[in-house]
């Protein structure tokens, strides 16, 4: 197992304690609730989307440092991105947190989000890191089903 410091990097602890874009978003036109039935964590994502561009993301919920930080970082990184861009970032992010030897190019493309790479060494925490992301994806797809991490194996 790698060092705990790889998992709990300072940026993650900071975003876990002081999440950005945390709260409701009155202008949001898409809302989605996500749930991790294994640990009881919940996230509600509010998205303001216009003409295929995500103008703002806010979120609420309870979760561990990893899930709150990951959703917080996501809400910053995806602001102003198109749905296509988000799809490609989503797939990069998924590779980052599930492959211990994630491609350097992937990390480069992800920029600040690459701090989440330590999660790959802790397989039981991958679901924490991806809950907010899967929930956002479902919100953008206007998927009516409740998101649970158990659908995303």
């Amino acid at each position: 197992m790698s060092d705990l410091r790889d998992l709990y990097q300072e940026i993650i602890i900071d975003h876990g304690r002081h999440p950005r874009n945390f709260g409701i978003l009155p202008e949001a036109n898409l809302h989605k609730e996500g749930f991790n039935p294994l640990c009881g964590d919940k996230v509600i994502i509010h998205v303001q989307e216009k003409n295929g561009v995500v103008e703002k993301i806010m979120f609420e919920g309870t979760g561990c440092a990893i899930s709150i930080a990951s959703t917080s970082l996501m809400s910053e990184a995806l602001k102003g991105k198109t749905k296509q861009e988000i799809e490609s970032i989503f797939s990069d992010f998924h590779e980052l947190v599930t492959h211990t030897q994630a491609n350097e190019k992937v990390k480069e493309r992800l920029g600040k989000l690459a701090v989440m790479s330590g999660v790959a060494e802790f397989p039981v925490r991958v679901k924490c890191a991806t809950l907010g992301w899967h929930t956002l994806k479902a919100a953008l797809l206007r998927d009516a089903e409740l998101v649970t991490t158990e659908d995303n194996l």
Partner: protein
Amino acid sequence: MTNSKYRKDFPILSQLVHDKPLVFLDSANSSQKPLSVIETVSNYYLNDHANIHRGIYELSIRATKKFEDARLNIQKFINASSAHEIIFTSGTTAGINLIAQSFGKAFIKENDEIIISAMEHHSNIVPWQLLCEQTGAKLKIIPIFDNGELDLDSYKKLFNARTKIVSVVQASNVLGTINPIREMIKIAHENNVPVLVDGAQAIPHMPVDVSDLDCDFYVFSSHKAYGPTGIGVVYGKEKWLNRMPPYQGGGDMIETVSFEKSTYNKIPYKFEAGTPNIADVIGFSAAIDYMQQIGMKTIFQHEQTLLQYATQKLLEFPDVKIIGTANNKVGVIAFVLDHIHPHDIGTVLDYNGIAIRAGHHCAMPLMERFNIPACARASFGIYNDEKDVDALIEGIYAVKRWFN
């Protein structure tokens, strides 16, 4: 007390985890197994295995004898009046489902009521909800106080002519509360209502006497009580079991079969369709021998001492809150730490070689009752000692250093 003299009986505990000595504090989830249980299962497969109840040859006779001896051993262990009242299932969950479906089919109809408590594990909630969906019966919930004790006055008021069964946990897997089930059974019987006791968290930790309790059904698992996984027991009073229909059909549970009609075997076989988990039944019997050699009162005392020590140490942290402060508890301590999520506690402790449970503990309604999304839980077995508690306390300091 510094060392548990029983620790050496559990080979798995001598390993290092993340370069630290393993501190196993998750026995309420599943206990570790003593060498005697591991060897019993292994010896069975090495020397004695054949299918039971049908062979006319030596191996089958030997396997059948060991299997049925295990049933007798379990009967004596819980002081049931007859071995016919001991049914093997795959675990507590399967046992509650068996009773819910079979008792339900015989006795529960639309608008009838089933009483459970607010501290039940999902396995003592969902099987009854399924039955309610099938029959139109209703669930009534015994509320709990903030300290984690059941509100018995409210319990008494839940009974009426439509109440058909009470299903309640003896010891809570989260709060640790030991419920006064003897008294609760008496109250139910005064209302002519039978009681199912979920004993999953009680059987490994204290003496249990089903005749003295006078419960109608008692269910438990082997794997929390130093035995193999995949085995559990339903105790049921003969008078009920004889009136209940089979739960599953198949081999072993029949008397005669024709395409027109089959007749069923007597209890307990009526409820044991198919080839059972023979090896692990025999392994569970060895686990019971192990517990009895130590003595259930000694086990209870050992864990009570640890519980008091750990509770006192945890309360020294101003930011730790213990969930469940009942007067009578088994060796289970659920807690939350201000501003630090249980999962993060679990990961940092694991990094220090300490295994605890973090999450909702299959008791979401209970989490809601205490207004927490999840909690951390340390639980004790006979192999734990004060050194394990000290390691946990050191671990919590480490957690706080990470996040504060």
